[in-house]
């Protein structure tokens, strides 16, 4: 039977876990013997078809930052982002595909073929980013059976391996993203209440604050700029990360900075660091407040706070959480691994639901009591033109049909009306986002719905959205009078080309590259 695996495709580190014979998740070390792999890619300048992924890529980065990529997850789904290496413009999905290829390749050293996987994503990832993550998996030769939210994966791990119960808040502060999820746990039944996330808040932002201290100190002492080129920037970014880690263990970190005006000594205390990251921590606390508000509870009603992600090792964060909730947060043995471990459990649950005959009996027995009730990750709506009460004029507005954090599976139907006499076309737009202002929502699909001719205005159009257990959305527009139906396929790209074709093309291209 096929191996059931889960992958945490993180901003700074990635990890692979599989389910053992009795359905318990285990981390699969990489070819260097490490349990987690840096999400870094380096394109070898001497060997065209060789790509270094992991620690080697991190080490090479300082030598040639132009051929190196880190924190690619922050660009996931960004259709504009490209990294030009030699004759190829690499997309974030392709680069992520290389990282996943390395995990798959290393995992297969000691196990049989790894194909069916669940990949974790931040809870706040939108439809485009989720799709991009799945595409990256396919490009790596994986069969992505599902996508799981990182805090949900972590909660699955905590709930099934540790003794937790009641209302739980998962505080997931990783290398580049931050998520808060509130859930009710009873035995092995996990009911997600809500998830909120901040896409641009994580360990790399804390590193950046330390880098700013380096630069300010050097300039103050020498009157010169510390960083003159990308190579120096890469070097000091890595050193800033070291200092951050040191400050989680000690009260002071010392460093000698070398720049164009010679050396300068810098001493950063834990207090300096805490002051520097205060506004970022403020952002995490606001997200907690938003989540508590969404869940309709207060901090006192949270029974346990679970920490996930490497950045939660920072003592300042743990202290602030203790202060906020009146109790110390709970830390797993390794906060870097619990997402991958939970993703493997989720993969098992998905296979058990969709293809039970493919799951070994031991695994099925190990997972049988776990029940997960998830929620819709985003609000989905459509553009319409109601009359503005204030101005008395028609305005374009985003009308939400499926509200974020609605328990899955869910469905919603609303009726809209045509605007003019003889209207034969209706532009339908599917949106993702919380705003009613169309400028601030993500328009994930736009199509033209052809209507019968010669009709008066105000003909009813029924719009039906549904969201399934696999976190996939379905949209249907129906002209009530004629019965005409338009089903919008969210898998089509802007050029109308099926994403399957594009992905297959890119998979073939990645085949040519050897990952080390």
């Amino acid at each position, binding site marked *: 039977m096929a191996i059931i695996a889960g992958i945490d495709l993180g901003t700074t580190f990635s990890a692979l876990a599989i389910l053992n014979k009795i359905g318990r998740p285990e981390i699969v070390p990489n070819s260097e013997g490490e349990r987690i792999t840096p999400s870094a890619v380096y394109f070898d300048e001497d060997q065209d078809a060789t790509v270094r992924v992991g620690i080697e890529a991190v080490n090479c980065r300082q030598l040639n930052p132009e051929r190196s990529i880190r924190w690619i997850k922050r660009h996931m789904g960004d259709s*504009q982002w490209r990294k030009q290496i030699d004759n190829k413009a690499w997309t974030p999905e392709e680069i992520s595909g290389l990282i996943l290829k390395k995990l798959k390749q290393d995992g297969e050293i000691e196990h049989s073929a790894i194909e069916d996987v669940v990949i974790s994503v931040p809870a*706040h990832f939108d439809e*485009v980013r989720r799709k991009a993550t799945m595409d990256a998996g396919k490009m790596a030769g994986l069969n992505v059976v599902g996508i799981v939210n990182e805090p949900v994966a972590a909660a699955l791990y905590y709930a099934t391996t540790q003794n937790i119960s009641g209302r739980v808040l998962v505080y997931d502060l990783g290398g580049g993203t931050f998520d808060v999820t509130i859930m009710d746990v009873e035995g092995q039944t996990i009911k997600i209440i809500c998830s909120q996330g*901040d*896409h*641009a808040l994580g360990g790399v932002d804390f590193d950046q604050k330390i880098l700013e201290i380096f630069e300010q100190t050097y300039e103050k002492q020498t009157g010169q700029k510390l960083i003159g080129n990308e190579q120096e920037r890469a070097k000091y970014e890595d050193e800033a990360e070291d200092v951050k880690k040191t400050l989680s263990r000690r009260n002071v970190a010392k460093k000698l900075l070398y720049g164009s005006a010679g050396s300068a000594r810098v001493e950063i205390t834990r207090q300096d660091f805490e002051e520097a990251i*205060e506004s970022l921590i*403020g952002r995490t606390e606001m997200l907690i407040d938003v989540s508590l508000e969404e869940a309709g509870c207060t901090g006192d009603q949270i029974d346990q706070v679970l920490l996930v992600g490497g950045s939660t090792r920072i003592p300042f964060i743990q202290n602030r959480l203790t202060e906020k909730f009146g109790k110390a947060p709970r830390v797993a043995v390794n906060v870097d691994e619990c997402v991958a471990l939970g993703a493997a459990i989720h993969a098992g649950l998905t296979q058990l639901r969709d293809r039970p005959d493919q799951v070994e009996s031991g695994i099925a027995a190990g997972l049988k009591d776990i029940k997960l009730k998830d929620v819709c990750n985003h609000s989905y709506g459509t553009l319409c033109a109601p009359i503005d009460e204030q101005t008395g004029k028609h305005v374009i507005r985003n009308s939400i049909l499926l509200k974020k954090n609605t328990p899955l599976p869910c469905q919603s139907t609303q009726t809209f009306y045509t605007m003019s006499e003889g209207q034969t076309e209706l532009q339908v737009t599917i949106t993702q986002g919380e*705003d009613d202002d169309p400028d*601030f929502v993500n328009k994930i699909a736009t199509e033209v719905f052809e209507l019968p001719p010669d009709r008066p205005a105000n003909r009813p159009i029924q719009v039906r959205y549904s969201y399934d257990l696999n976190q996939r959305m379905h949209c249907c527009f129906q002209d009530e009078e004629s019965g005409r139906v338009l089903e919008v396929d969210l898998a089509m790209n802007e050029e109308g080309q099926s994403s399957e074709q594009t992905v297959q093309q890119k998979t073939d291209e990645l085949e040519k590259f050897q990952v080390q």
Partner: protein
Amino acid sequence: MTGTTLGILIAVLTTVTAVVAIGPVPLRRLLARWIPSVDPDYFSCRILKLEEDTGSGYSDVLAIQIQGVIRAPRERCDTDLLICLTDVSEGNSGPKPVLCRRPEWSAEGSSANETKIHNGTLPARVSALTDWVTAIEIRTSDLVFPRRGPCLLECVLSVVETETGKPLASARGQVQVDCESRGYEEIRQQRSTKQAAILQLASCVWEWTRSNPEAKTILDQWLSQQSFGAGQSAETLLDSFSGSPEERVDQACDDLLGWAEPADRYIAVELCLTIAAACSDIPKDLLGRLLALAEKLEIPKERFQALSQKYLTGRVGHMEDPRALLGLTEEMTEPEIHQKLTAEYRKWNARVTHPDAAVRAQADQMLNLIAQFRSRCGRHS
């Protein structure tokens, strides 16, 4: 009744009346006493007020009718009816056109208070209408009068030769009507008042920006897109206000509230915000002044905040005090500030994954600003 039907009626009546009309003069004069239409010089027009059942109610209709003799230069002369409507409430010294919204009144080469209807061929050189015949029916709701209120509407109806346009018969009729909607003169005046008020507000905001040159460019751009009424210019509009900027703002806001549509008030505020956004440095008190201006225009606070965020978020770095951008006021208590900041955080955090890099950057900037204010005002659980 249409022109074609009118033509048929003329044909029938003409047969009878022509005999009389071409007879000896004394006989004609005698008959004309009893039948005016047979007076060879008689041609008359009248306007009747009718009610039309529209299915969902009744609508006022004006029926323009004619009676009398039409003399053509030749047999089988093709003719048109030319109808012109004017408001003569102020006497013949100042007749003003009454416009009609119907498409046939907007023909090229004619003014909107005139229309031409093809009448058809006259059956004889002298044709006569012994009864009143309806030439046209017009719904009063299709008419645009100069002003609201009572109006003496005059219709001049001429039968003209189609080929030459030469008048064959002409008459005028009058009727008293009550115009219930705003007249075009009022609309024009309203437009001018509105334009002046918006310009005045924009110019005051420009003064508040310490007469910033970039802001002036925006104001000039707006002016270049405006069309002014006859004898008007930006200068004359500005001259219609006097006093300090605050007094002029009060006056302009009063004008906009009294004369303009609600949408115009939003246009005014958006222009003011665009001018403010153009400044390289946004003075500390500007946002507060803009908020007060919006309040005077009865724009809800939340709407103003949404607008100001739309226009000014990209300028946060250039603002001396961006509190108003977050909807924070001096009177707020610390928990209220905290609550407001959380709400703002929720809003901007949902925008931070937007596909447009500019929106993402804007959202990121706002999130950092919110976090800064939050750490300044203390923490609350």
